[in-house]
């Protein structure tokens, strides 16, 4: 009997380890030989711990499981309420287009054999037969854009590094996923780490870089452990090292752990941190593609961008580019979080309207109260009211509505949310996490908190001052921390004026 119990942190946080133990005990008590595989998560966090049992018909899902439910898997009563049916037939699974996350939750994350059996390394083998320029062109044709939030075309970034002359070049993976509401990077690193390794190796072949770093935040100890183990396995198997898959080409990589600074998710700050400096933002130019890590040409890409590269090389650029909407090509792993009935990761082609994701896929709020606002793209993303729910999920589409998709995390709030409080939190967060290099961010965020407090006390003039301050921060900050904090603040002020007015009246 083969049983899958996820080892993803979200599953663990909901008790997966205890469930795995209870299943092992139950099997032993019944004299059944059970092979328990610790897989990644399928992304249905509201059903975690989601246990799967392999059957001739396919994998049957059970969840959400508790240790006391272990007997159910063996009794397999026909009308068991925890028996969900075939995993692949669940609505959440059927409605997705899983390209980047195709293997996540399916395979044992640290089995290179299973990785290969599910299409892994095909892309790298294909890339090994191509010239650097051809690899870059393939990425350009796929239309892949930076999934970290900026949406810059990945192929163009790679080309800049490829054409730069230097004795050393680097591939740096930005795994400093600090945005609230996002966990796609964590999920893929814990559930399919070899896809990231393969993507980084392909980036190395394309640009002539022979060394890679994954800058991984310290808040993700499980992901750090899985990635370290996966790099070692890949190196031992000859996927990484001086002779990648016997090609004579070299690429190796290591995992570096961050130290709790949100701003290090910004690429130049990340590079400083990697070099062992304070994580202070650097002015651009020079671009990291020309002078990046240790002053050498460097590709800095998000985890999901890099983990998607093998898919593009396995199926071809056209296959990938055929999904999506306008200039947003391919798929996006939407992370549905916060106050939702069904939270988790839902990978879909660009273009699904926001409202469909929130009301239909997520099933509204967990509390059952009406949805008031959705913050899209992390702490620097705008709060969207219901009136913007028809916005299709795409880079330009969200930009046109005064927002950004960022790393594609949705945080849903019910009608009890205090939007003035959320705006204040955005400024407070910016003040705490500012690297201190530029004045609009360092000083502006502190003044922002004070100004919002004035509004809360009923000061009628303060709203205009806040708007003015936000414009200064937006135009004058060096990076997205100070530059984008105005998104949550101004969207809260613009779309939820009552929350700002009510406090005024209360004060009067």
């Amino acid at each position, binding site marked *: 009997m083969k049983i899958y119990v996820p080892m993803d942190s*979200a599953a663990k*946080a909901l008790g997966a380890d205890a469930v795995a133990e209870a299943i092992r005990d139950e099997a032993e008590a019944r004299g059944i030989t059970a092979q328990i595989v610790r897989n990644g998560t399928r992304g249905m966090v509201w059903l975690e711990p989601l246990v799967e049992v392999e059957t001739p018909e396919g994998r049957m899902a059970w969840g959400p499981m508790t240790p006391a439910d272990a007997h159910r898997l063996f009794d397999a009563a026909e009308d068991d309420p925890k028996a969900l049916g075939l995993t692949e037939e669940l609505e959440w699974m059927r409605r997705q287009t899983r390209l980047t996350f195709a293997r996540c939750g399916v395979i044992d994350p640290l089995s290179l054999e299973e990785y290969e059996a599910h299409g892994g390394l095909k892309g790298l083998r294909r890339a090994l037969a191509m010239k650097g320029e051809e690899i870059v062109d393939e990425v350009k044709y796929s239309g892949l854009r930076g999934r970290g939030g900026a949406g810059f075309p990945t192929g163009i970034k790679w080309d800049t590094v490829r054409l730069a002359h230097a004795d050393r070049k680097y591939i740096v993976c930005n795994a400093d996923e600090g*945005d*609230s509401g996002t966990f796609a990077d964590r999920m893929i690193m814990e559930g399919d780490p070899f896809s990231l390794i393969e993507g980084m190796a392909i980036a190395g072949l394309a640009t002539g870089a022979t060394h890679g770093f994954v800058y991984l935040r310290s808040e993700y100890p499980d992901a750090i452990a899985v990635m370290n183990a996966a790099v070692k396995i890949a190196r031992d198997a000859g996927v990484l090292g001086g002779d990648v898959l016997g090609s004579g080409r070299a690429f190796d990589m290591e995992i570096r752990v*961050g130290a*709790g600074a949100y701003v290090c998710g910004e690429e130049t700050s990340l590079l400083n941190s990697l*070099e062992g400096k304070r994580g202070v933002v650097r002015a651009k130019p020079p671009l990291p593609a020309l002078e990046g890590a240790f002053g050498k040409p460097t590709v800095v890409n998000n985890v999901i961008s890099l983990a998607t590269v093998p898919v593009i090389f396995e199926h071809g650029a056209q296959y990938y580019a055929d999904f999506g909407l306008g200039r947003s090509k391919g798929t996006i792993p939407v992370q549905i*979080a916060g106050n*939702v009935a069904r939270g988790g990761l839902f990978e879909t082609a660009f273009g699904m309207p926001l409202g469909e994701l929130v009301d239909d896929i997520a099933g509204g709020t967990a509390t059952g109260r009406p949805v008031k606002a959705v913050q899209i793209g992390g702490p620097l993303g705008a709060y969207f009211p219901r009136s913007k729910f028809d916005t299709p999920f795409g880079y330009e589409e969200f930009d046109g509505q005064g927002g950004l998709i960022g790393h594609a995390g949705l945080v849903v709030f*019910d009608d009890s949310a205090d939007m003035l409080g959320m705006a204040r939190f955005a400024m407070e967060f910016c003040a705490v996490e500012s690297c201190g290099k530029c004045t609009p961010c360092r000083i502006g965020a502190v003044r922002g908190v004070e100004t919002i407090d004035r509004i809360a006390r009923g000061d009628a003039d303060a709203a205009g001052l806040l708007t003015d301050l936000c414009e200064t921060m937006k135009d004058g900050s060096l990076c997205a921390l100070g530059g984008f904090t105005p998104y949550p603040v101004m969207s809260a002020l613009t779309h939820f004026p009552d929350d700002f007015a009510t406090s005024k009246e209360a004060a009067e």
Partner: protein
Amino acid sequence: MRHDLPQPSVDDIQALIDGQLHLEGPLLPILHAIQEEFGHVPEAAIPLVAESLNLTRAEVHGVMSFYHDFREVPAGRHVVRICRAEACQSMGANVLAEETLAKLGLEWHGTTANGAVTIEPVYCLGLCACAPAAMVDGRVVGRVDAAKMDEIIAEAGA
């Protein structure tokens, strides 16, 4: 001050530094290694690190103080980190945190008088779909309500 952790000697610290010197940009890995061993980065380590990397002590201190993770003094025997980010707030993290701190009579970063528990804020554990979230030492916990937090605190011995 905790006394159950090994007291750092110059040789111990230097060995940890030397173990990371082969890396490019070794400062953060060195600070992590020291903190993992001693639960904090002792003041005695700063000149040793500076000397090994040909930096000034001020530069090492500047790096150390920039990052939230590095401690100048050890934490309690257990560290409970409560997520304060937006997704957790949407599920009541603010009330959970306030009540927890009030119950223990602590401010953020504070340690209970018996040295058992330090409460820290954290901005996102990537558990946003099972909020509110917390981390007890290295162990993640999702959908933390008041009862679950009481259990965590009791287990930690506060």
